[in-house]
């Protein structure tokens, strides 16, 4: 194709095409191509579209089916498919599929979610989700925080000489041999390690302090790797004190163990969040945003609060009076101890090996 000037006007001559023009056309088409994909991804959801959500099984699956899947299906006549499993499997798969994800939305924990954004696996939170503007600050990092569930010390009050008020109380001789220490690198294990470092003068860059202090607590009653296992240990008297999610532990205490106390250490509880993340490269961007908006809606937030004592992350939810004392308020959320998760991820492998060798092994 060649431009020919005829009577002061540029006309197109279709008979021939120069190599340079052809090159420009190819370059132009190449530059325009991403917009085609973007248009497709941002297009309004159509009936029959399918959203793939990676989430934990059990009650979490039931709650999102009721409060997200049903209204989404009603609104867009779309289908939601769930991939169930633990965070490690989900995260490993999302990393393996970076840029060409089979998931549209995945649920991660606090530190994995922030790193996933840095690694280009998932998207940062944006106002494209209407509820974004109501999110508490901590829930805008690494995706959309959907539940605040801080980690703290839990213990059997019958076995405590004095109430636990500090993380340092774990080192009181009365708890020797009675502690179920959480496995690293699970969220509880990371919180235990980092809080130990913080209260004994270390930090994310000086973690040796924490390992040395934790070693002083040996022998442990057990190394806990799941809530089910830990609560069974409390039931059967295997352990008397542990580090665990306060929300789930409150539920356990109310239903099974009236002697369980959820401590409020003076140094603060460790921040932990469940985060919904939209994958980079999803073909269902709009539907994924709608899904997350539904998760952040009042019915879903309240269902989570009622069933699991997961605290809402948005400020436009009216929390019933009976639930308020059992949840983390926004003011309390601001006081939760957060960490430099980049440093944690950077050192995760070395810390895991050290934990296996010196603490668990």
């Amino acid at each position: 194709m060649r431009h020919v000037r005829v009577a002061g006007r540029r006309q197109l001559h279709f008979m021939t095409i120069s190599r340079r023009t052809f090159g420009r056309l190819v370059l132009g088409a190449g530059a325009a191509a991403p917009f085609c994909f973007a248009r497709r991804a941002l297009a309004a959801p159509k009936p029959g579209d399918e959203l793939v959500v990676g989430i934990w099984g059990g009650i979490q699956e039931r709650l999102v089916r009721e409060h997200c899947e049903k209204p989404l299906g009603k609104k867009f006549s779309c289908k939601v498919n769930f991939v169930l499993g633990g965070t490690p499997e989900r995260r490993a798969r999302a990393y393996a599929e970076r840029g060409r994800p089979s998931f549209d939305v995945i649920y991660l924990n606090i530190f994995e979610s922030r790193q996933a954004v840095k690694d280009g696996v998932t998207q940062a939170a944006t106002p494209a989700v209407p509820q974004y503007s109501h999110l508490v600050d901590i829930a805008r990092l690494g995706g959309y925080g959907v539940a605040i569930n801080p980690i703290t010390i839990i213990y059997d009050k019958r076995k405590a000489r004095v109430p636990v008020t500090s993380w340092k109380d774990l080192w009181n001789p009365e708890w020797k041999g009675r502690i179920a220490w959480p496995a690293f690198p699970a969220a509880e294990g990371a919180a235990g390690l980092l809080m130990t470092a913080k209260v004994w003068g270390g930090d994310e860059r000086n973690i040796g302090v924490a390992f040395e202090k934790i070693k002083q607590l040996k022998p442990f009653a057990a190394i806990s790797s799941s809530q089910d296992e830990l609560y069974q240990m409390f039931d059967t008297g295997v352990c008397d004190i542990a580090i665990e999610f306060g929300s789930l532990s409150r539920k356990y205490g109310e239903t099974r163990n009236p002697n369980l106390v959820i401590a409020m250490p003076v140094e603060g509880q460790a921040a932990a969040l469940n985060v919904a993340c939209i994958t980079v490269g999803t073909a269902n961007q709009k539907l994924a945003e709608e899904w997350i908006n539904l998760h952040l809606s009042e019915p879903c937030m309240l269902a989570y609060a009622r069933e699991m004592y997961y605290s809402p992350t948005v400020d436009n939810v009216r929390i019933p009076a009976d639930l308020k004392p059992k949840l983390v308020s926004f003011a309390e959320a601001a006081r939760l101890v957060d960490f430099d998760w980049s440093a944690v991820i950077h050192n995760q492998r070395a810390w895991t090996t050290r934990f296996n060798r010196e603490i668990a092994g």
Partner: protein
Amino acid sequence: MKSWAGPALAAPATLWLTAAFAAPFAVVLLLSIQPGSDPFVHIALAPSAEQFRAIIADGFYSAVLLKTTALALGVCAVTALLGYPFALWIVSLKPRWRPLAISIVLVPLLVNVVVRSLGIELLLAPDGLINHGLSLLGLPRANHMLYNYGAVAVGLVQVFLPLMVLSLYDVLQANSPRVLEAARSLGASRTAQFFSVELPMSLPGLRAGLTFVFLMASTTYVSARMLGGKQVWTTGMLVWQDVLENLDAQFASALALIMTLIAIIASLAIALTASRLTPWLDYRPTRAWSMPRFLAVALDAFMPVLARLLIAIALVLLLLPLVLVFVQSFNDVPQAAMAGFRAFTFRWYAQLFDNGLYFDSFWVSLKLALATSLVTVLLAASAAFALVRTRFAGKAVVETFWMFPIALPQIAIGIGMLRLLQTFAALPAFLGLLAVHVTITLPFCIGLLRASVQQLDRTLEEAAESLGAGPLRRILLVILPTLAPGLAAAGIVALLLSFEEVTISSFLTTARMTTLPVRIYAEATYSLEPTVFAISSLLIAMTVIGMFLLGRVVRLDRVFSR
């Protein structure tokens, strides 16, 4: 046989494994020689020994490798100890009782490994059945039976005992009763008959059983995680942790390859020992086995009691966890792992039928298991004929290649698959899962069918040929009917192994393709409710009824005999 027959018969299994196993294995191999721990590492062909150096230099990894090997050897020893009297007991039963006994062996294979491990937890927990029993007898409670190597070993013995029993039963029932009669007529006591006749003749079965159990026990991680409580470390757990939690596939691949090397060395050691103990199989000179008189008398005195005790232990180990699963399905407790019966409820069954999710996954698993069984049997039968009836260049290499998927830890195949996900994403999910399930079940079925083809009476085929039957008629009218029990056995084993597979399926599962074991495992990663016991109890009931009905048509004891 024509010269091309061997390669032609060997081709289907070889091609399948090349596509579905060799590709992920090659990825694992390449990953293991990459330096660093970048989760997005671009695979380079320049080799680096960094990962292997790190493993060898770290005493922790060497210690875990040694402990895992010791654990697998211990599990092998215990399964053999329990498996022998149990298999002999089944052989000694009247024919009408054998299908029931075979069912006792098969039913546990159909129950998910997570559920079976939970059954062991309910048995060993501080408020579990054993401690209740001790309390009733006025004995002190044993509160530390869980979360140690002993608990893991008990769990693994429960999981792998059926494989050992089936391997031993296969050879023991094939022994001619006349051999034992001859031994008796020469004055051999029952104990002497066992040590001089049955034990030597059953060594090929013991070799197969030990190999299967060692390879699977040394690569385990689900049972070890649940029953070891993170205080027990196995190499499989370390590989799982590195590849999934630390996203360090390079290190995990190197560790998986070392596990594979140990597995291959162990398999060769077992094969060599079995070969030296069974010289008659290779037409080498043989010395009669004998034992001192005093030892024979001593053994005669306590062996019958010991045998009964071991049979009772095997029965309890196989069945009690399943009974606990059944009881727990009616227990009104909020979590599956809670021991002790609180109150009777149908709630978990109601929940099961209400949401239907377990049934969706059940159908996915059943369809996958049936397809796997069919494809595996076709490939394995062809491969077995290639091994037994033909000679061709490279036969030994091909045979080793076919057995390789057992030696490589399943988690390692998962690592390779994770890296190949981009390619596999283009495949329909069902085909991806089918490819991997056939890869896992094929070595077992080739082993089973090889023995069955060896036992075929060639004179029948020659007689048919002399009467004018062509190759197709000989296959349809002579070979297939006589091979039917072997094909059925291989089909059932493939079906059961596929139905309960969770390790690789959890990597490959997709939104529309969640198998039942993956759903159960997914729930176990968060908080497992007793609904899982309800679906497992239904499965057990269905299996028993299915076995009963199948037993009316086919003699199950013959299915598992050559």
